[in-house]
């Protein structure tokens, strides 16, 4: 009986019932179901916001521990924690101080943090992806010399060259378009249909309480 209560009640109350209500809210034009759906989705957003707070504590625990134990690379952890604290100050002060001049200054500081620190750092990291992708291609030829690997690289090269405006090689653009629109699109459709099926079945498993990632029971 206890196992039944511990297994079924939480799963039905917190997984199946809200899940079915939200699903019904999207499928049915009934305004009551629509209202319930919106409230439940709002609730999920609030829970997610609290999860961000947990995430901040997680960062404090992991990097605080590294600093405390002087683990390898601890100065980076220190920089991370200082940066996190500094980034919190302007929005926190904005909610406390209501004077327009202060608000404007804090707004500028927040924008400067995004425009001159977070944005360029993110762009630099994104640029690194080009190098790692190229390195992977080289590594592929070194580690796996198969017909599939050669075909993969050949198509990558054709699509890349077809995107460049070479005079006299306009036919490459046509080859690129054909690769993208015929075999590429067919493969993508098949893949997306498979992913959609996998998503539906996994979601139904949660709704049926057959998969309970939140519970041991």
């Amino acid at each position, binding site marked *: 009986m206890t196992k039944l209560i511990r297994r079924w009640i939480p799963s039905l109350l917190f997984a199946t019932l809200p899940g079915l209500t939200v699903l019904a809210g999207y499928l049915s034009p009934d305004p009551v179901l629509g209202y319930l759906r919106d409230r439940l989705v709002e609730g999920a957003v609030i829970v997610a916001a609290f999860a961000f707070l947990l995430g901040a504590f997680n960062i404090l625990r992991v990097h605080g521990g590294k600093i405390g134990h002087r683990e390898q690379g601890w100065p980076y952890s220190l920089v991370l924690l200082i940066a996190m604290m500094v980034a919190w100050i302007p929005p926190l002060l904005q909610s406390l101080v209501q004077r327009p001049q202060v608000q404007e200054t804090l707004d500028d500081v927040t924008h400067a943090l995004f425009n001159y620190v977070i944005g360029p750092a993110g762009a630099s990291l994104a640029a690194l992806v080009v190098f*790692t992708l190229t390195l992977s291609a080289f590594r592929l030829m070194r580690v*796996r010399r198969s017909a599939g690997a050669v075909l993969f690289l050949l198509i990558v090269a054709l699509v890349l060259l077809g995107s460049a405006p070479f005079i006299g090689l306009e036919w490459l653009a046509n080859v690129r378009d054909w690769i993208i629109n015929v075999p590429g699109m067919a493969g993508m459709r098949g893949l997306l249909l498979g*992913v959609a099926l996998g998503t539906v079945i*996994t979601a139904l498993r949660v709704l049926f309480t057959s998969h309970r990632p939140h519970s041991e029971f």
Partner: protein
Amino acid sequence: MDVGAILLLILSALILAVLLILRGRKGPRPKIRPLPAFRDLWEEAGYAAESGGAVHIALGGGGLNGEDAITSLAALQVVEALADTVVSYHAPPVVTVGDPTLAPLAEDALRRAYERNGIPELYDPSSVRFVAPTPVAYAAGAAHVAATEHITANMIGGAFGAEVSLIADAGAQQDQTQLAAAADLRALGALYPATDRLAVGEELYTAGAQMTDERRYAVSLVAQDILRVILVLAILGTAGLAILGGW
């Protein structure tokens, strides 16, 4: 919503429910198609753990409240499946997440594995790490973990884009055993050159069936395969009718 989508949803629910009722508890475990990406993964994880290193599991930037929720739940099955193996070797896994909503579930899966193995006192909550909320920053942080923390096996599964190449490259440079499972096309393009253990698209959702003995996962994979056959027949039938109608 489209009527076809509603019908597909109802059909999926019916097939899964019938299979769960008929094969969920009784009879032999349904046979499932083996996938090369998951073959001998337990042994590989065991060897990696035996060698004294840790296993890194990167769950991607998806969380529980967005469009990647189901992909992230499917990836979480990799943690659930591998946790017992690596914990039994006393090799603490490192799980990195890019969305804090996923962290409590991953922490819980690990904690339960330690409890099942009778060593709850060895569970370290900092084994699960929220790295960063943006995809590229997360990938860079997870790559740093893979490169610097004496990792011997790198498992990548969940919601990723092309930036996953940073994590896979870090693993390849350290000569780590790598498994990757992704549903996004950009991630698959980036991962194909990095590892030959690649679960493509829907194969990510079969991780539970491939990596555990749980009947419910095997049953749901059978339901998925039945639906696929129905879908293929429907597509071919519709195309055939369209061609005949055109004539």
